[in-house]
């Protein structure tokens, strides 16, 4: 494997993963949202909940399809591009990845069909059960993938065999590795927040045009409630996860905070540009001692800097420093949005402030950006290791050539650009039509969004 092929494989994996993670983030949240909407509909029989369900079901189907096909890619890229990693680590994480397929993917795929196409074939109770099973499946999937990734972040309970392969010595300890609980909670909350922001943005758009649109008024309040409750909770969970990093991945922490020297009372850099070559930051804007406090809870504590690690063991500091700040900055904006919306709600209704509606629309994609920034922090911050402290990314790659990986990377860029553009267009078009376009299922043959309905609809 040449250096070029290694670099191209890293770019390809980063690109395909960043593209993929958008859709699970959205569908984990949407599936739970749909389950809540269907439960509310079954309990109250209010048509508004059914309309909202059907409206978001169409967007769910579009996103889920994109998540499935971009996810299949991941399960093969471990072998095509990272075969040495696969071979060495399969004794530990192989079963976790297989469990994801067995316990989550089949469940989601099978009951999604019932959710989308089963309205006339099953009763309301069974249909609701299908929705709940899909929502459960998305969470189970997140469980296994975060479990595998957490083990790679902080490997425990394994031994090396004479031929170099790793084997698990305690499966429970592998599945529930020390960083897993906070990271799983962090990801699920991130998915719920990302979805709440999208639901909020779509509702805000409908209310911008017609502040009396009743379905969107309900959905906006649900989104505001979710933001109000979950965004601050996410800050606490994220902080717990960060404290984990202080102890378990000190090099990543030093990169996140832009610490070069090891010292007591580290400052917190609000802005800085870490320069690897000169081993210092440019353009620092800092608050004294706050850095030690946010990372350890003690303003006087001594925290390691990047210089404590050999240059070949340091992650790329600038990427990690900024991706972390983008994530946290957006998280704080979400807390603000939730509080603002709640205040307006208390004073008579969030739709009465056009400024708030504009802010809610602007924040629509913020969750996805924060998720990608967060994963960039986690994965780039782990470098140069693929399994922290055990295996370097550079020794994990497949024996494939640079021309092969160039060809596939270019093809992924082209195909994903087409798929993303089309998917975004179709989702935005649904949002532009609003929930009123979602007909109750028994009103006509072929509900909206179906091949049959589309075939009979007049061309616009």
């Amino acid at each position, binding site marked *: 494997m040449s250096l070029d092929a290694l670099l191209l494989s890293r770019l390809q994996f980063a690109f395909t993963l960043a593209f993929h993670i958008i859709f699970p983030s959205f569908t984990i949240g949407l599936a739970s949202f749909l389950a809540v909407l269907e439960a509310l509909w079954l309990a109250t029989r209010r048509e508004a909940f059914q309309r909202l369900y059907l409206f978001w079901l169409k967007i769910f189907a*579009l996103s889920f399809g994109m998540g499935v*096909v971009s996810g299949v890619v991941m399960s*093969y890229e471990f072998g*095509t591009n990272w075969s040495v990693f696969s071979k060495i680590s399969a004794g530990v994480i192989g079963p976790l990845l297989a*469990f994801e397929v067995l316990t989550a993917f*089949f469940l989601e795929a099978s009951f999604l069909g019932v959710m989308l196409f089963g309205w006339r074939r099953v009763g309301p109770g069974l249909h609701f059960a299908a929705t709940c099973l899909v929502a459960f499946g998305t969470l189970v999937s997140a469980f296994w993938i975060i479990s595998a990734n957490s083990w790679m972040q902080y490997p425990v309970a394994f031994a090396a065999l004479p031929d170099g392969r790793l084997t698990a010595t305690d499966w429970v300890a592998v599945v529930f590795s020390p960083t897993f609980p906070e990271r799983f909670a962090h990801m699920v909350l991130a998915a719920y927040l990302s979805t709440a922001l999208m639901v909020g943005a779509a509702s805000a758009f409908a209310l911008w045009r017609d502040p009396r649109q009743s379905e969107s008024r309900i959905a906006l309040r649900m989104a505001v409630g979710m933001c109000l409750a979950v965004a601050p909770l996410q800050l606490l969970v994220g902080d717990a996860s960060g404290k984990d990093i202080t102890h378990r991945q000190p090099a990543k922490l030093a990169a996140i905070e832009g610490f070069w020297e090891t010292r007591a009372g580290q400052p917190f850099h609000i802005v800085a540009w870490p320069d690897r070559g000169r081993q210092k930051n440019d353009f620092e804007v800092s608050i004294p001692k706050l850095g030690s406090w946010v990372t350890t809870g003690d303003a006087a504590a001594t925290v390691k800097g990047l210089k404590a690690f050999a240059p070949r063991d340091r992650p790329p500091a600038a990427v990690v420093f900024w991706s972390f700040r983008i994530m946290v900055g957006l998280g704080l904006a979400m807390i603000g949005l939730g509080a603002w919306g709640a205040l307006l709600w208390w004073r008579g209704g969030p739709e009465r402030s056009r400024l708030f509606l504009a802010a809610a629309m602007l924040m629509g994609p913020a969750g996805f950006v924060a998720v990608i920034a967060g994963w960039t922090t986690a994965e780039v911050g782990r470098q140069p290791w693929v399994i922290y402290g055990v295996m370097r990314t550079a020794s994990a790659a*497949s024996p494939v050539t640079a021309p092969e990986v160039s060809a596939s990377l270019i093809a992924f860029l082209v195909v994903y650009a087409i798929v993303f553009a089309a998917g975004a267009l179709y989702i935005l078009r649904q949002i532009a039509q609003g929930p009123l376009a979602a007909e109750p299922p028994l009103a006509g043959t072929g509900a909206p969004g179906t091949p049959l309905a589309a075939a009979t609809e007049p061309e616009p």
Partner: protein
Amino acid sequence: MSGLDLPLIWAGVIALAVLLYVLFDGFDLGVGILFAFARTPADRDTMMAAIAPYWDGNETWLVLGGGGLLAAFPGAYAALMPAFYLPIMLMLLALILRGVAFEFRSHGRRRGRAFWTFAFAAGSITAAVAQGFVLGGFIHGVTLKGGAFAGGPLDWASPYSFVVAAGVVAGYALLGAGWLMIKTRDALHGDARRWASLAAPAVALLLAAVSVATLFVHPQVASRWGWTDHGFDLSRLTRLAAIPAMGAAGLVTIAVGLARRSQGGPFVGAVVVFLSGYLGLAASFFPYVAPYGLTFRQAANTNSALALLFGALVIILPVILGYVAWVYWLFRGKVGADAGYH
């Protein structure tokens, strides 16, 4: 679980997953291949509705094939994936375009709809061709050094693998046509019957061509079937004779089904033909998972991982098969006017 031969059990499980993938996704890829030949947009809508509730579940068997191979036989996964880098990437990209087409096609307007119609047909054909390249390259053998792939990026490409790819496309088209005969009525049902009657002879021809070519190109396989260095050994062939006989029986089932205007006969026949081809491959290559340098025992994961996986599998797999069967039963019968969502 010390009494169990876990690597052997897992070889069977992975083989079963791949077989189920080929049969399940085979018919829905086949419908995509036939998409190009549909007469009217309404026929294409019906064709898509005939597979829409199943395709995602069908493709999950491919993920189990990949993820299961990684988990159970990491040595094979690590050796084979780089060897077939280009065809696998081609397959994944094709599956992306045809997979999103299920939803996107119903959202597109005039040009978007035409594009996704094309993407669905072209993606299905390309995915089948790419799988044929992988199979052809696999039969051809993989260059290994120390258990890792040590060949070139185009090792899989040979005239032989192009014939195999043609066979896979014809085979999937046959499965797809058989499925459409079960799920549709009237004119489209008639078209599906015609497609099946064209695909079946093509499959018979290509299956025979691939089988004979394999015997000539690969002495190891020929020896399994009786053509050894010391002449012809009839006893070896007779032991395996049931497999080609099964293929012939499948083809006869298709022919009789078509002649008697049976609804499900041709599909059942096509499944039997695939089964015979699959067993033929298994008989030719067992115990190799990467011909001809890596056996399933050499490629197997640690016993601890295999035991954990097996413990989970005996509980989960029956449940999966149960609800997959339930979903197929739920959407049984001809595709009607209420086929769309909701």
